[in-house]
């Protein structure tokens, strides 16, 4: 087993679909939380294979998409300063801020570099002792230990020219925000598997009991998602609401204790503003006081910026699961991956980008989707 191709098997997928059909008696609306799952669903055509009675809503699980515009503007302000090397995951560079994006800063001469691992910036800082090196620390719980390790190692190495612009967000508070919003119609969740690999799934117990919704921790391959859908529908049909774990090969109830220790050493929980969802209490991570010297916002003293989003873009409603990309009047016309108006069209995990890519060019079959992603 290589844990990729086996979970894309067409025959097993057809059998799962048959079983989902067998147990579905009425209409259900469930949300897959993670953008990676949204892409797998669109790419393999799961949304078209499952019974029409099941409505899949696409959740806010795309860190690039939910990063608030004012934080993008702050990144742009820092990246525009002389002597700064601004490092980021590639997806962030084309997300529109109020007036421009990071790519245009690069075009104007800014030194903006894409990195694969947060800790790659340590080498950049070490090799450029006369420059200020800043890392754009976005991500969910999955990325938090890597970002924490960057800060921890910077302290160990006594690197004075490295800092991080913190944009880390946490998933369970966003799920609660969606459930408590007026007009919510989410009846069950496929929870984001890799978030749970890190932090476990104990946090979901109180959401399940408070809102009476099933939550199934789910992986990212087509068979994982089909099994997750089956387990969620089975709970709904039986009138149960429990936390279940579909992704047992990668997720333990307690999560990864070593990862949680390094996160606890470096970060504390703060309120954070999300694009589309607004301010959510205790939904972000910031550096604790002991590591404040590595906080780019403090180091560069960027003033509070007021930000404006594109008026035509409905990505906020898409991130809340209230609209789908097809509901947007500018989808595919004024807004395309080449000229995106909102983050959900930019990110490789955004719902609009997924619809644009897979529904415009047709759907790949599950068997043909190969196993060639970059690690």
């Amino acid at each position, binding site marked *: *087993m*290589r*844990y*990729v191709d*086996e*979970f894309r098997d067409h025959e*097993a997928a057809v*059998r*799962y679909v048959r*079983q989902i059909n*067998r147990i579905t008696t009425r209409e259900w609306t469930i949300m897959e939380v*993670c*953008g*990676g799952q949204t892409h797998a669903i669109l790419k393999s055509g799961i949304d078209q294979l499952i019974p029409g009675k099941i409505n899949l809503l696409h959740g806010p*699980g*795309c*860190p*690039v998409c939910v990063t608030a515009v004012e934080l993008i503007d702050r990144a742009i302000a820092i990246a525009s300063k002389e002597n700064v090397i601004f490092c980021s*995951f590639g*997806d962030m560079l084309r997300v529109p801020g109020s007036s421009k994006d990071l790519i245009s800063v690069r075009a104007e001469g800014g030194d903006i570099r894409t990195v*694969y*691992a*947060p*800790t*790659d910036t340590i080498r950049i800082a070490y090799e450029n002792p006369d420059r200020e090196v800043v890392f754009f620390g*976005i*991500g*969910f719980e*999955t*990325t938090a*230990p*890597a970002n924490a*390790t960057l800060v921890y*190692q910077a302290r*160990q190495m006594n690197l004075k020219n490295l800092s991080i612009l913190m944009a880390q967000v946490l998933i369970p508070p966003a799920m609660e925000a969606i459930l408590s919003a007026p007009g919510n119609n989410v009846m069950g969740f496929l929870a*984001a598997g*890799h*978030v749970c*690999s*890190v932090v476990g799934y104990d946090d979901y117990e109180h959401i399940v009991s408070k809102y009476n919704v099933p939550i199934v921790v789910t992986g*990212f391959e087509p*068979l*994982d998602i089909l*099994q997750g859908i*089956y387990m969620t529908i089975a709970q709904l049909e039986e009138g149960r609401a429990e936390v279940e774990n579909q992704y*047992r*090969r*990668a*997720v333990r109830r307690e999560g*990864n204790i*070593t*990862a949680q220790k*390094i996160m606890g050493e470096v970060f504390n929980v703060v309120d954070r503003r999300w694009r589309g969802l607004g301010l959510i209490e205790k939904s972000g991570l910031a550096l604790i006081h002991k590591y404040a010297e590595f906080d780019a916002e403090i180091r560069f003293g960027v003033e509070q910026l007021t930000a404006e989003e594109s008026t035509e873009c409905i990505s906020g409603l898409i991130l809340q699961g209230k609209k789908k990309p097809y509901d947007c009047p500018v989808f595919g016309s004024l807004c395309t991956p080449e000229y995106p108006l909102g983050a959900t069209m930019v*990110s490789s*995990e955004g719902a609009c980008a997924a619809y644009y890519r897979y529904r415009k060019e047709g759907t790949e079959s599950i068997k043909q989707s190969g*196993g*060639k*992603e*970059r*690690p």
Partner: protein
Amino acid sequence: MCLAVPGKIESIESDDALSRTGKVSFGGILKEVNLTLVPEASVGNYVLVHAGFAISTVNEEEASQTFEYLHQIEELGQSGESD
């Protein structure tokens, strides 16, 4: 963004507690990966790698449950039909 890809640990290069690193094979392509967060993982294990860090060791016994579960629900369906 939360993409994590399974790969097999081929070698452990540094076993320092703070910066445990190793070579991980992704279908034959070797990459250096930070293994600090998976102290239990050893050569031959599969790990899930995200942003250069292994975040979880794949539990090989649990991996077959997706297929066992399918058998179980199919049997459940058949016994339901014969009732």
